[in-house]
């Protein structure tokens, strides 16, 4: 044997990069520009009794992602093409909680699926780099390390904070990273490549919160929210006319969790297309002057949306404690006085929710008001939606492919010698 170090030279065999979030898990090969797949962070769980009749579905006959559980005979459905199919008694459950992996059983199903269907290679050939939330706890980090080495036999492993990756990929070693994702918005100060963990601030106002607001608003106005799976066909109708559509025949006993999940997907589409943030606090007169946006629902009903599209988005900012601007300035305020100026001087905006039109501009305005006068404020946000959504993944992809980074990995040899506590020693 020629020593452990040669086995995971990143040049010969591609390292893999995993970036888990609440909305999806991003998976792909290092050195590529974008992830190979974006797998939703939910798993559909079917009942054992259903096994016989789901086999009649054409897509389940050939798919190899339906993993039979060992102790129980539940069926698991992973990835959009399988989760989004209406099935009786299929519950939908996420494995993430508070930015961290929580349900390890489901998480393993998704990793199994990723290796089998996305990577299509054996895990023992590829070093693995994972991103993690800045507030991830030791227990969780060690558990992930253990899982990757013990179950998947990876040759090498590394764990990096997603805020650090986002800062680096914007060309900054010191930055305040404002990340607005599905379940929360966080402000994380990064100083010289390390997270100042005592000054991390987060709030539960994210994309999912907006989805709920949209749903409430639309239901209040009596708009029928039938997701696309219910619709068989639809006719063209005039604006604000009642929809004329025929419904699909659906399996019985669809679970509430699955229906909610499908409704949420529909609301995500609505909010990305319709909502917008005003640069200044919401004002009815200003909002009324901005052109309306047209949106057609899956059932064919369509109408223009005017000032309400700003009013709903406003809730991300107008909250006294949890508004994004407040969050960012609180975080900076908790750091040492000598780094505050450099943090205000490089605010990195990332996360899928920041693609909401006007988000960075409004954050800039709110932060300027809260920063000490004559502070030089600088916002850095990637222009493309791919860079904004996959910022942390892209950062990880590059880091794992740098030649000199190969000495940073925790090798399987090191793991065998010192155990899972290696992760605390080697990955800051």
């Amino acid at each position, binding site marked *: 044997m020629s020593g452990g170090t040669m086995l995971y030279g990143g040049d010969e065999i591609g390292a893999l990069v995993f970036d888990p979030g609440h909305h999806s898990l991003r998976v792909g090969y290092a050195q590529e520009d974008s992830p190979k797949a974006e797998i939703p962070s939910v798993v559909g769980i079917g009942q054992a009794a259903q096994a016989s009749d789901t086999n009649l579905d054409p897509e389940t006959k050939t798919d190899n992602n339906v993993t039979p559980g060992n102790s129980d005979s539940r069926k698991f459905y992973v990835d959009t093409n399988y989760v989004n199919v209406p099935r009786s008694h299929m519950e939908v459950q996420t494995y993430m909680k508070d930015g961290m992996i929580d349900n390890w059983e489901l998480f393993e199903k998704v990793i199994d699926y990723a290796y089998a269907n996305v990577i299509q290679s054996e895990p023992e050939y590829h070093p693995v780099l994972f991103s993690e939330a800045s507030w991830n706890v030791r227990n969780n980090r060690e558990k992930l390390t253990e899982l990757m080495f013990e179950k998947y036999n990876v040759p090498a492993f590394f764990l*990096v904070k997603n805020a*650090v990756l986002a*800062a*680096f*990929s*914007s*060309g*900054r*070693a*010191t930055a305040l990273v404002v990340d607005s994702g599905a379940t929360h918005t966080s402000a994380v100060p990064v100083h*010289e*490549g390390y997270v100042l963990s005592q000054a991390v601030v987060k709030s539960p106002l994210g994309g999912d919160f907006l989805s709920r607001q949209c749903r409430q608003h639309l239901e209040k106005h009596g708009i029928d929210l039938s997701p696309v799976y219910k619709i068989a066909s639809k006719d063209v109708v005039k604006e604000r006319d009642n929809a004329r559509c025929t419904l699909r025949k659906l399996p019985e006993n669809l679970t509430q969790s699955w229906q909610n999940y499908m409704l949420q997907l529909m609301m995500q589409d609505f909010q990305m297309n319709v909502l917008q943030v005003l640069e200044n606090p919401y004002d009815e007169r200003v909002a009324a002057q901005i052109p309306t946006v047209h949106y057609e629902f899956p059932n064919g009903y369509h109408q223009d949306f005017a000032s309400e599209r700003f009013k709903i988005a406003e809730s991300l900012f107008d909250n006294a404690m949890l508004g994004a601007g407040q969050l960012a300035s609180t975080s900076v305020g908790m750091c040492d006085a000598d780094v505050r*100026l*450099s943090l205000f*001087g*490089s605010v990195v905006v990332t996360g899928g929710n920041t693609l909401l039109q006007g988000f960075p501009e409004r954050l800039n305005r709110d932060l300027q008001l809260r920063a000490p006068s004559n502070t*030089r404020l*600088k916002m*850095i946000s990637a222009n493309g939606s791919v*860079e904004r959504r996959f910022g942390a993944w*892209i*950062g990880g992809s*590059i*880091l794992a492919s*740098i*030649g*000199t*980074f*190969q*000495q*940073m990995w925790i090798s399987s040899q090191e793991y065998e010698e010192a155990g899972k506590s290696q992760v605390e020693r*080697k990955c*800051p």
Partner: protein
Amino acid sequence: MKMASGIELTRECKHVFEQIRKMKQHRYVIFIIKDEREIRVDILGIRDANYDDFLRDLRRGGPKECRYAVYDYAYHHQCQGASSTCLKEKLFLMLWCPVQARVKDKMLYSSSFAALKRDFIGVQKCIQATEMDEACREAVEEQLRSLDRD
């Protein structure tokens, strides 16, 4: 603990840095990462060079190239209550990652910045710049002056 990328400085870099710090032999030095392996000296600025020369050399590689730089910056400072001014010289270290640079280079340079900070003892200010408004003379001087107490 080592910094994230694992890239190291060559001995030449430290040598040139000491030439500026102790002997004041050059006005500035610009560093480059070679072959994604190590940090090397790219351009040396003579002692009489001015800030515009520096900005030109910093961008000599083109608008998409990242660089590091150390500059020995001199300015006049008027102490409170004193009528005369005194000349101050301060060393600053710059991370130059232009907005148009490839993400790969941004990542490489920013994740290796800690190595320079660690090895260049005597640098008074670290400046990160992605656009000219952060690298221009006014912005830099403002940052250096903010270190003066009175």
